[in-house]
């Protein structure tokens, strides 16, 4: 029922966009459809995860005649809480994103019709909601590809810019690349009777040889990893996400790439039912590498949205660290720890969806106000758009894993899982854990640095450009959307007591994990959060309250102690120089300079500084131009060679079409002769 309402909502939104195309009616109706859909999705998910009964939402699509691939239900029985989590994530971000779009797309009036973007937005949401619910190959792949197409079209919304087109090509290419692997993985599991239902696949998978299982898993990991943006399959992500309209970026970064995580879990746990330790190890390693490289590249970005996109890679890495650890523990039969790992991964999935969504919306408002994504042209926005600044600050703190916000809590759970890794019997394997811990810690530290840069350069200091000076606060709808997500960041942090047990129940029972009873923790304000297997305990809510209390208490204390309350506003101290100009400020490039030097081995920065001096004396500099480039390792050494090779081959093959009729006829006869030869070869 609610399920049908969800579908109806999205379809309604799409239809509204198609019908009205422009004007406030279109904007509101489109958003309304998405919001209805999202709300239903959240309802379904919450009911499922927290075990309220709202009745089963299984439906079967009935066709006049069903070809092979339509056998079996489309939408699963809510017996799959794992899917419900991802469904919930989709809905949870869909609502604010849709709300945001109302204000965001107003700027399009007159320039661009809402028809395509609006319809695609809703269809995108619909297909994303249905992916985790699909119960057989066809439907999964159909929605998966639907998701790809709609998002591709959304990325192409602002195709006037050539880089958008470029990004779109990369995106579609990587999508198709991934699809190939996913199809292979699925079809290798195909049972003899050809039924594509997941239950059947799982049953058949149990009979397969370990080698084949591993092959399937690796294929799936590559396929879904390319969607999730795991290094080195991430190249499309930093260009595609920023190219899209900001509320879409929020959805892509916050939600879509998470479905890659779902895919890995689907295969690793549900279809293949767990595997050898090296599966987990592989996932863990890839995760750690992605986390570190993601943030390192983010540090070098001065394009606000690209920076955020790189952070998506980092956080996906963190999620995969949790998942990978879980899989390893599973293979070593440490169920409690395994649950902890998976819970950490899932929890971070949800949290990242919130704060990354929030940050992209924030970046969108900045873009909306300044018409640029280049941080070097911003600054001082906190005075012009204070609320946006506040929300962005919350997001920045959350993604930097600062307590008591949600980012910290989920990273804490992951940390705990890794710490537990010490109890892996094989020492040489267990040593993997501290390494992961170190990389995770470094990543979060660098993330903090990176967001000091992102927030500081963007919002603080003096405006660096005319646009920044003229910036205006975002419309109310956009503010409300951001506020909702900011609130979610706080609540999700404080509600760990509720989340962790619930997520524990979600993974419970999968692939030989312990049943729900083993992982549930009754929740109350007082009981500290101590997941089974964790070697520590924290209570985020008291931390939150305590900090709030202190923040109130300190001023009161000062007041009581009659400290001076005098305050004088004056210029910033400029080393004795009188007037302070924006050019005296630290820039984003300068901020990242120390780290660029320290990690020069990775970046291989090439800097060119061009100084032109005052004609009279070389002691007076007129202007300095400083440019620094870093080596895009993966593009240059992994992808470009392949592409060049293909192009070279293509040139050779096109030479076949030489234009000479005689050559053509010769091909024909040659083909005949070869075929006759094959006949001799195979005939007998």
């Amino acid at each position, binding site marked *: 029922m609610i399920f049908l309402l969800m579908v109806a909502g999205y379809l309604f939104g799409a239809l509204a966009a198609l019908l009205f195309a422009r004007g406030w009616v279109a904007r509101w109706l489109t958003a309304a459809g998405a919001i209805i859909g999202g709300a239903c999705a959240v309802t379904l998910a919450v009911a499922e995860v927290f075990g309220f009964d709202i009745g089963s939402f299984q439906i079967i699509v009935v066709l006049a005649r069903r070809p092979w691939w339509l056998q079996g239900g489309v939408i699963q029985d809510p017996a799959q809480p794992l899917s419900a989590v991802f469904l919930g994530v989709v809905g949870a971000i869909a609502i604010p994103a849709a709300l945001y779009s109302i204000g965001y797309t107003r700027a399009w009036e007159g320039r661009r019709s809402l028809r395509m973007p609006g319809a695609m937005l809703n269809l995108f949401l619909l297909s994303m909601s249905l992916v985790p619910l699909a119960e057989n190959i066809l439907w999964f792949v159909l929605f998966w590809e639907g998701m790809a197409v709609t998002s591709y079209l959304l990325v192409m919304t602002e195709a006037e810019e050539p880089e958008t087109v470029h990004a779109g090509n990369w995106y579609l290419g990587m999508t198709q690349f991934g699809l190939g692997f996913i199809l292979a993985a699925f*079809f290798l599991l195909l049972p003899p009777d050809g039924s594509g239902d997941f239950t059947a696949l799982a049953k058949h998978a149990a009979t397969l040889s370990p080698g084949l299982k591993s092959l399937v898993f690796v294929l799936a990991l590559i396929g879904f990893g390319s969607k999730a943006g795991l290094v080195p399959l991430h190249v499309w992500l930093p260009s595609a996400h920023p190219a899209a309209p900001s509320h879409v970026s929020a959805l892509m970064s916050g939600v879509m790439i998470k479905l890659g995580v779902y895919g890995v879990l689907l295969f690793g746990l549900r279809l293949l039912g767990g595997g050898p330790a090296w599966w987990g190890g592989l996932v863990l390693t890839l995760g750690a590498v992605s986390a570190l490289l993601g943030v390192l590249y983010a540090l070098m970005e001065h394009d606000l949205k690209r920076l955020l996109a790189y952070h998506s890679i980092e956080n996906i890495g963190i999620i995969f660290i949790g998942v990978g650890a879980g899989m390893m523990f599973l293979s070593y039969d440490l169920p409690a720890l395994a649950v902890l790992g998976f819970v950490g991964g899932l929890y971070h999935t949800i949290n990242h969806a919130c704060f990354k969504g929030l940050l992209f919306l924030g970046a969108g408002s900045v873009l909306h106000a300044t018409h640029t994504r280049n941080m070097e042209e911003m600054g001082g926005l906190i005075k012009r758009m204070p609320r946006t600044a506040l929300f962005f600050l919350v997001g920045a703190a959350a993604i930097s894993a600062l307590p008591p916000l949600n980012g910290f809590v989920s990273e804490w759970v992951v940390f705990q899982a890794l710490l537990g890794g010490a109890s892996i019997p094989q020492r040489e394997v267990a040593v993997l854990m501290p390494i992961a811990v170190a990389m995770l810690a470094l990543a979060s530290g660098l993330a903090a640095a990176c967001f000091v840069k992102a927030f500081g350069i963007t919002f603080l200091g003096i405006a660096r450009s005319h646009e920044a000076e003229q910036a205006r606060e975002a419309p109310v709808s956009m503010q409300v959307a951001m506020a909702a997500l900011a609130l979610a960041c706080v609540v999700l942090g404080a509600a760990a007591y509720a989340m962790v047990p619930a997520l524990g129940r979600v993974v419970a029972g999968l692939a030989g994990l312990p049943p729900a009873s083993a992982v549930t923790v009754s929740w109350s304000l007082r009981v500290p959060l101590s997941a089974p297997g964790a070697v520590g305990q924290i209570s985020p809510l008291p931390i939150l309250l305590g900090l709030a209390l202190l923040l109130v208490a300190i001023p009161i204390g000062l007041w009581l102690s009659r400290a001076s309350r005098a305050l004088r506003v004056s210029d910033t101290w400029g080393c004795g120089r009188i007037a302070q100009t924006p050019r005296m400020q630290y820039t984003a490039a300068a901020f990242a300079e120390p780290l660029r030097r320290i990690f020069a081995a990775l970046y291989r920065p090439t800097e060119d500084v061009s100084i032109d001096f005052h004609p009279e004396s070389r002691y007076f500099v007129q202007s300095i131009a400083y440019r620094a480039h870093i080596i895009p390792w993966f593009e240059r050494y992994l992808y470009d060679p392949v592409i060049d090779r293909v192009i070279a081959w293509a040139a050779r093959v096109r030479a076949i079409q030489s234009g000479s*009729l005689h050559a053509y006829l010769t091909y024909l006869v040659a083909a005949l002769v070869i075929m006759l030869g094959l*006949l001799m070869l195979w005939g007998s």
Partner: protein
Amino acid sequence: MRLTYLLLVGAPLVAALVAALVRPYLRGVGVAGALLSTLSLAAALRLAGQVLAGATPTWGPSDMMRVDALSVLLAVCVSFVAALAAWLGPGLGRDEHYTPAQARRFRIFSSLFAFTMLIAVTANNVAIMWVAVEATTIASALLIPLHVSKASVEASWKYILIGSVGIALAFVGTVLGYFDYVHLAGERESALNWTSLMAAAPSMHPRVMALAFVFIVIGYGTKAGLAPMHTWLPDAHAEAPAPLSAMMSGVLLAVALYAIIRWKVVVDLAVGSALPDRLLLVLGLASLAVAALSLVGQRQYKRLLAYSSIEHTGLMCVGLGLGPLGAFAALLHLVNHAVAKGMMFLLSGRILDRYHTTEMGEVSGLLRAMPVTGGLFAAGMLALAGLPPFGIFFSKLSLVRAGFATGHPWLMALVLVLLLAAVVAMLAQINRMLYGAPPAGVRVGESNRWGLVPLVLCAALLVAFGLGGFGAFQTLLDRAVEIVSR
């Protein structure tokens, strides 16, 4: 039922006669032709209905004509694309690029072209089928240089020579098959009937039939545009007027493939399916590879479409080599491709009329210059790339599935890689045309809006196939598959 059949094949013939006899050329001729083609389409659909009801009617001396699910499937495709071409082709008075003489020529030969193809797919006698396929070459070759230019003449010469040689080889195959049959069952009129061949097939001599099949595959493969016999195809498709390209790419290739299918069924029974499957897989893969790599860095959009036709024919060929599942995929693909390519080539015609160039580099801002055309063009591209919600997505999917189900994982890996290359190449190229600003001197805004209606219908059809809106079509498909995989 006989009447229906006569309508199906007769209507185009009448259209041709009308166009030939009425002088001077009147606009009414074009309209009449279009109406007649529509009539023929209606007849095809009616026939399909009757076949669905369980009939497999036969006509002519010693049953040389026969219609079963497979042939009616093809007949519907042919008459559909023919109708498209007739409605959007020259000679309806809207377009100034054609002289009345050219219009007449187009009307005559396109109708004959359709007629021969319909004969080919409804022939029971494989020799008649051969005659008809050979005739398609004759009928279409003269249309390629509708605008006489060095390029178009060259293309038509290459087409006619390569085509004829190939078809001649197919006749060798036919003769060999007949040779074998005659020494089994003695001479009789019905000897060359597919039905009697089927009946005798199990006891035929494997070696002869294998040899025959090689000639058949090479021969008809030439017409189907399988590499390395494909070389005539890009030239012909690129130089021919858009409606003809649509017919050639949309259904001519399919008809040639149909001939191969007919023979394959017989040979499977005589030789066992292992050998024919292998031969088809080899050719299919070769075509796929050549086409995919030729798409990379292709500079003209009509040639781009032509190569993509080769790619898709190759896919169907691979599918035919993969047993029943593959056959299903191939036939589904065939239908989808017919609709998609018909639409695409007609759209390319509109683009050519507007931009006066076939170079992709010189076409830009299509979406702005012609919103609907550009939109449909983009949609068609996505469809050809095998993305939902278009039908080719399903046919591709079931093809890959068939490959894995029949235990050809490596083959499928190769296919997937090639498809990736093809898709990326195509979309990357097309995007250049779609966006940006139209070059100076190109008029903005759709012209001839009515001409868009059939094309929109095509797109709708593709989506309908994609969303599994099958029903009767599904049944027909299943029947056809039963025939192919006896």
